C-alpha cells in the first residue's frame, strides 16, 4: 500500500498521486509521513516538500510557501499558498 499524496494550491491541484513517503517542513520541525500515519495537522513553514516515490529512491523536492498539511484517512493533503514550479 502506498500513501496518497495531494498538493493543492489556490490556482490548481498540483499533485495527486500514490507515493511511498513524503517529508513535510512543519512549523515545529520536519516530519515524514508514511502510509497509515495517525491523523495529524500542522502548519508548514516555507521550505521543500520531499517526495519519495519508492523506498530508497532519490527524493523529488517541491518548494512550497505558506499553508498547512493534513493527514487523514485518505492520505496526506498539503494546502500551500504558492508552489515553486
Amino acid at each position, binding site marked *: 500500500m502506498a500513501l496518497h499524496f*495531494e498538493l*493543492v*494550491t*489556490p*490556482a*490548481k*491541484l498540483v499533485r495527486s498521486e500514490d507515493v511511498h513517503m513524503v517529508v513535510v517542513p*512543519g*512549523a*515545529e520541525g520536519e516530519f515524514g509521513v508514511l502510509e497509515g500515519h*495517525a*491523523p*495529524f*495537522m*500542522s*502548519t508548514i513553514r516555507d521550505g521543500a516538500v520531499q517526495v519519495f516515490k519508492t523506498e530508497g529512491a532519490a527524493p523529488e523536492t517541491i518548494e512550497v510557501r*505558506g*499553508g*498547512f498539511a*493534513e493527514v*487523514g*484517512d485518505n492520505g496526506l*493533503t498539503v*494546502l500551500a*499558498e*504558492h508552489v515553486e514550479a
Partner: protein
Amino acid sequence: MASLKELKDRIGSVKSTQKITKAKQMVAAAKLRKAQAAAEEARPYAERLSAVMAALASKVSGDDAPKLLAGTGSDKRHLLVVVNTDKGLCGGLNSNLVRAAGAKARELTAAGKDVEFYLVGKKGRAPLKRAFPNQIGHHFDTSEVRTPGFEEAASIADELVELYDAGKFDIAHLVYPTFKSALAQDPTIDQIIPVPSPTTAEDSDAVVEYEPGEEEILEELLPRYVKTQIFGALLEIMASEQGASMTAMDNATRNAGDLINKLTVQYNRSRQAAITTELIEIIAGAEAL
C-alpha cells in the same frame, strides 16, 4: 429623406461597428473557456480548506475563538466589498451588481446600521459614488494586472483583515456575481468577516493531533479562508465578465445585422426612386419635342 451618400456612409459605419462587436464576442468566448477552467482548478483548494475549517471550528469555540471567527460582539458597522469588472462591453453585469449592492446598503441603513463600501474593479466606482457619495471607503485597483489572481486576492484580504483588526468595521459582506451560464450571472452577497461558522461539522472518531495547537492553526487558517473566498469571487467575476460580454456582443452583432439589412433596403429603394424620376424626366422631355 436621407441622400444616397448619407445612407451609404451609415451602412459603412454600422458594418464596422458590427466587425468590432463580432471580434469582441469571439475574444470573450475564448477567454470564457480559460476563465471557466481557472474556476474549475481552484475548486479543490477551496473545498479542502472549508472541510478543514469545519473540523477545526467545531473544536475551538466559546471565548477563546479568534476574533475573525467570533466577531467583535457588535453588528453596527457594515462593510460592503463590491467586486466589479474593469472593462465595459459586458451588458448589464456591472449595473446588476451595483443595484444589488445598493439595495443591500439601503436595507442595512434602514435597519440603523452604518454602511461603508470597499470597491474592487473600476466599473462600480462611478455609480456607487453617485448614490452614496460619503460612504466610499477604499478602492482596490485591479486594472493594472491582466488577470487578477491569488496575489491580488491576498492583498485585498490582508487589507480587509487589517481594517478589521483596527476596528474599522464589524461585519463585511462580499458582493460578486455567481457565474451560472453565459446568459445568467446572479449577484450574490456573502458574509466573509467574521467567518460564518460552518454548519456541516462532521464528527470524526479519529483523534487528530495538532501542531502547534488548534487555536494557532485556526488563527492562521482564517485569513487564508478569507483570501480563498475573495479569490473565488475574482474568478467568478472574470468568468461572468466574459460570459456577459459574449452574450451582449452576440446581441449587438445581430442588431447591427438587422440594421444593415434595413438600411440596405432603404438605400436600394431611394436609388430606384432616383432612377425612376430621371427616366420620367427624360421621357417627358422626349415627348415634348
